């Protein structure tokens, strides 16, 4: 917490947790090569993985009790020409509940596709569907990659950085005339 809790006992309680995370880090770096991890806070772990390893790493964490997929997100890094997929895992169990794992992987921006993770986490389905719709990433093996939110088809999926919504509004909505003006 960034909020002020001076006597929360930062010493003992969190230290113990850090140790546990250390064990986890060791395990994962042993199991998967090319995994880069950073700890942003005592109980938040960021893992940068290669895209081929993602499913295995998700399985790996699921086996170790991180059974709650909070969120799948996507970031458009337009300058480096990559999409970054983010899987945020946490646990339903009480002792691990405070911890998060942010698993990140990068895929090329051109013709983007990735494997679906529905077989591991069932609730990934709408998240992947949303990312497909808003970023245009294809998830192979997903049962229904149809429209979720949108009514229209956009040339560029709207959440990509090169889609400028203000310009779009000017081009599209503003040009529709008022009925009074038409007469």
């Amino acid at each position, binding site marked *: 917490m960034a909020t002020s809790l001076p006597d929360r006992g930062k010493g003992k309680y969190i230290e113990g947790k850090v140790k546990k995370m250390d064990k986890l880090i060791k395990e994962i770096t042993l199991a998967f090569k090319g995994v880069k991890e950073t700890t942003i806070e005592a109980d938040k772990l960021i893992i940068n993985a290669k895209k081929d390893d993602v499913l295995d790493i998700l399985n790996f964490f699921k086996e170790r009790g991180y059974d709650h997929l909070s969120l799948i997100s996507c970031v458009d890094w337009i300058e480096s020409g990559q999409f970054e997929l983010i899987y945020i895992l946490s646990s339903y169990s009480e002792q691990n509940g405070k911890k998060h794992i942010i698993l990140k992987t990068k895929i090329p921006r051109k013709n983007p596709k990735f494997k679906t993770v529905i077989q591991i986490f069932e609730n990934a389905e709408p998240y992947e569907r949303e990312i497909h719709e808003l970023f245009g990433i294809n998830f192979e093996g997903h049962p229904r990659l149809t429209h979720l*939110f*949108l*009514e*229209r088809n*956009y040339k560029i999926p*709207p959440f990509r950085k090169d*889609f400028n*919504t*203000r310009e*779009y*509004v000017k081009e*599209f*909505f*503003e040009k*529709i*005339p*008022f*009925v009074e003006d*038409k*007469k």
Partner: protein
Amino acid sequence: MDRTSIKKWFKAPDKMGQKYSLWVVYFCTGCGIIEVPPVITSRWDAERFGVIPVATPRQANLFLITGYVSLKTLKAIIRTYEQMPEPKYTVGFGSCPINGGMYWDSYNTIKHLDKYIPVDGWIAGCMPRPEAIFIAVTHLWTMIDKGMAKGYIKYRENYKYYRQNQERLFGKLEWPPLYPIEERENT
């Protein structure tokens, strides 16, 4: 409130009937709907004004467009509006239908509701308070009295243009035109 005007009842019973029984379509179009439950329940009690929510548009004659309208909702709104029997009135509730409001730069909400369906009155605010709904209703009464709430007639007369605007948003609409378009043009 002009309760005393019994004369009016004899003069224009239809207007009086429309005025004092404004039935609202039960359709949560946007976030403004959050103030409708308080209005229709005991604290504010809209029934004192003859306003009650009804299940289907076929029974309703007032359409409260509560808040922002996304493209997908607009389609539903148009269909609902066209199902309502005449005379029918629409009130834009909150900033968003007037000029885009918070979502003035959103790619998925429309900025001016009156480009697509006629609107008889507007309520400012984000959120407007429950009182504002009552005031809007009383305003609508006077407008009906004076014959100013003619949105539905406007829709009928300019249906071609409204339909054009709607089709610019959605492409070809899947339902047939409510009014024959060609004939209107000739008269």
